[in-house]
C-alpha cells in the first residue's frame, strides 16, 4: 500500500526528520491560503500514487499566493499516468545546495533490509542504480538491532557525504530506519534529501510503501488507504480473499493457487491468446467461491471466454464440478466457459460436467487452446 508524500512526511516529522513546512489543499483557494500562511516561495506538488510526477508537470514553483492558486488549479485538473490528481501539497521551497538520495528497502537475496545512500540523487536515481551502481553506498543492518551509528557513518563515508553534514545524515538515516521498521514498510525513500545553502539537511520528497500483510497491526495507515476506480475490482476481489489483477486480453482466467494461475496465463499465451486477468481464488473452490469469481471476471466487458483451471487438492474435483454446475444453472454466464479439472477426483468431476453447457478439457494446454479459440 502506497502512501502519499504528505502522509509519508507526517510520519517522517513524527520521527524527528526535518521536513519543509507544508499544507494539504484540495482546491485552488486552499492552495492560495496555504501559500499565504507559509510565506515566501512555495512548491505546489500533486499528491498521486504515480512515479515521475515532476516530469509530468505535477510539481510547480510559485512565488506568490496567486501563482500558487493558478498552479493548483492546473495540477488539480491533471491526470498523471491515468490517475486523477485530487490533492496538492503546498510546501516551502528548499534552498538547495546539493541533493542526496536515501532509501531503505528489502534485499531478497540477503534476506536483510538494505539502506542506500548516494550523493547522486534526484529524479534520475534509477538511472544511476543501473548505469553506475558503485555510486550508491549500501548497508545491510540486522533487523534485530536496527541501523547502528557505525553502519550509518560507513554509508556516509562510502557515499562521500560532506563532513559538515555527516552527523545530520547519520541521524536522518537512523530515524528513517525506525520509520521503516515501525510502519512495516516495503520501501521508504527520501529523494531528494536536500543539503540547503545554510548547511542544514531536509527531506525534499518522501515515498513510503507499506506491506499489505502487516496492515492488521497498522490501523492508522490502514485508514489512509485510498482506492482508485481502476483498483476497485481488485479491492472487491481482495475482500473475498481472492487475488485479482486486471490485464488487457479477452480470456478470463480463474484458478486456485498463484503459481497455477500464472501457469494458466502462460498457457493462454502459448496458445496465441491474451489473458484478461489474473484471478487466484486461493486454496478451496466451493460453489460460492466459483460464483463470486465468475462475477468479478465477467464484470470486465472485454472478456469473451472464461477458462477455469482448478487443481483439486483438499477440495475434491467432483465438489468443484458440482459448484460449477450450480452456478451455471442459477446464473448462466454471458461468455462460454472452459473448465479444466485436475488432481483429486478430477475424473469424477469431469464425468459430472459431461452434457453441461460448457467445455471440459483434461489438460491445461488443451483447455487454454479451447478458451483462446472461443474468444476469437
Amino acid at each position, binding site marked *: 500500500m502506497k502512501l502519499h508524500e504528505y502522509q509519508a512526511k507526517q510520519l517522517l516529522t513524527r520521527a524527528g526528520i526535518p521536513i519543509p513546512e507544508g499544507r494539504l489543499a484540495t482546491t485552488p483557494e486552499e492552495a492560495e491560503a496555504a501559500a499565504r500562511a507559509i510565506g515566501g516561495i512555495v512548491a505546489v506538488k500533486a499528491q498521486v500514487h504515480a512515479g515521475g510526477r515532476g516530469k509530468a508537470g505535477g510539481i510547480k514553483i510559485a512565488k506568490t499566493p496567486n501563482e500558487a492558486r493558478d498552479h493548483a488549479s492546473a495540477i488539480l485538473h491533471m491526470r498523471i499516468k491515468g490517475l486523477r490528481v485530487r490533492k496538492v501539497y503546498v510546501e516551502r521551497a528548499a534552498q538547495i545546495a546539493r541533493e542526496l538520495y536515501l532509501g531503505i528497502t*528489502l534485499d*531478497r*537475496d540477503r*534476506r*536483510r*533490509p538494505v539502506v542506500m545512500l548516494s550523493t547522486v540523487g534526484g529524479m534520475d536515481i*534509477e538511472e544511476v542504480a*543501473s548505469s553506475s551502481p558503485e555510486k550508491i553506498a549500501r548497508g545491510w543492518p*540486522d*533487523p*534485530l538491532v536496527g541501523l547502528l551509528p557505525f553502519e550509518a557513518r560507513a554509508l556516509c563515508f562510502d557515499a562521500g557525504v560532506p563532513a559538515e553534514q555527516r552527523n545530520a545524515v547519520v541521524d536522518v538515516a537512523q530515524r528513517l530506519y525506525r520509520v521503516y*521498521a515501525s510502519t*512495516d514498510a*516495503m520501501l521508504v525513500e527520501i529523494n531528494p534529501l536536500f543539503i540547503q545553502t545554510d548547511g542544514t539537511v531536509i527531506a525534499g520528497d518522501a515515498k513510503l510503501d507499506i*506491506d*499489505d*500483510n*502487516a496492515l*492488521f*497491526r497498522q490501523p492508522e495507515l490502514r485508514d489512509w488507504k485510498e482506492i482508485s476506480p481502476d483498483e476497485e475490482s481488485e479491492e472487491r476481489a481482495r475482500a473475498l480473499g481472492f*487475488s485479482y*489483477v486486471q*490485464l488487457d486480453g479477452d480470456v478470463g482466467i480463474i*484458478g*486456485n*493457487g*498463484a*503459481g*497455477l*494461475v*500464472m*501457469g494458466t*496465463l*502462460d*498457457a*493462454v*499465451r*502459448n496458445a496465441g491468446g491474451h*489473458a484478461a486477468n*489474473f484471478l*487466484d481464488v486461493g486454496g478451496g473452490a466451493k460453489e460460492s467461491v466459483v460464483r463470486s469469481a465468475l462475477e468479478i471476471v465477467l464484470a470486465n466487458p472485454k472478456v469473451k471466454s472464461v477458462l477455469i483451471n482448478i*487443481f*483439486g*487438492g*483438499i477440495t475434491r474435483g467432483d465438489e468443484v464440478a458440482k459448484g460449477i454446475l450450480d452456478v451455471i444453472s442459477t446464473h448462466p454466464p454471458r461468455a462460454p466457459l472452459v473448465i479444466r479439472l*485436475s*488432481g*483429486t477426483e478430477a475424473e469424477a468431476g469431469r464425468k459430472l460436467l459431461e452434457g453441461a453447457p460448457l467445455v471440459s478439457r483434461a*489438460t*491445461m*494446454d488443451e483447455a487454454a487452446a479451447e478458451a483462446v479459440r472461443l474468444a476469437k
Partner: protein
Amino acid sequence: MSVLLGRKTRVIVQGMGREGTFHATRMRDYGTQVVGGVVPGSGGTKREGFPVFDTVAEAVDATDANASIIFVPAPGSMDAMLEALDAQLGLVVTITEGTPVHDMLRVASVLARSATTLIGPNCPGAITPGECKIGIMPAENFSPGPVGFVSRSGTLTYEIAHLLTEADLGQSTCLGIGGDPVIGLPTPDAVRLLNEDPATAVIVIVGEIGGSAEEHAAEYMRAYGNKPAVGFIAGRSAPPGKRMGHAGAIVSGNQGTAESKVKAFEAAGIPVANAPSEIPGLVKEALRG
C-alpha cells in the same frame, strides 16, 4: 530417507485449529510420525488422539520430536517460528499465509545463527513420497522415485507432481518452498540439498517471476551440479509492476523477469519447459543422459 525428512522424522503440529488438526490427521494417514501438537493453554488435552502441549519445548521433551509444522495464523507466526528455532528442531515447515515481511526478516536473522532448516512460510510443505509428508499437499499425486523437486508454487507443484507421477517419474523429495519475498529455504539452498542427495538423480526447479533466486540456483548448478536439472518459470506473460498473487511474484524494472531466469537456466545447460506438460519429457531425456 532423501533430504530433510523421512521415516525417522517425528513431527509436532504448532497450531491445532481446524486446519492444523485436519492436516495432522492427513499426515498421520500418510504414515508421517505425528507425535503431538502445541496449543498454548491446552496442554494435557488430546485432539484426534494427538497429545497437546503448552510449549514446543515441552512437546520436544515428551515426544523427542525433531520437526514441526506451523499453522499458527499470520500475526502469531513469527513467534511460532522463533519458538521452534529456540527448541533447535531440525526441520520447521510454516504453512501460514500472510506473515509480514518484517517478521520474516527477524526470523531470517535468527535462522542465520541456527542449524534448523526452515521451509516456508506460505508454502505447501515438503514430502518424501512413501515415507513422510510434512505439509498440506494432496499426497496421491506423489510417488517415490529419483526426481528431486523444488518449487515456489503451491497448486502448480501438485500439478507437476501429478504429471511426473503419471509419466512414471517418481520423486525423491519435493520441497514446496513458498512464494513470499523472504523465505526460510530459498531455491538455491533447496537445489544444493537435492544436488548433494544420493537418492536424487535429476532436479526439477520450478520458479516464478520476481527476485533472483532462480538465477542464483542456475549459477550454483553451473559450478557444482553433479546431475541434470530441468527448469520451469511461471509468469512469463506477467506484465511488469503487477503483483501476481504471491507477494514475491512481481517484476520490477529489469529484475525478476522470466527472460532473465530462462537465460540463466539455459546458460547453465538446464533445459526450460514452456509449459508444465513438457516437464516429464525433459526429465526423461535428462535421465537418459
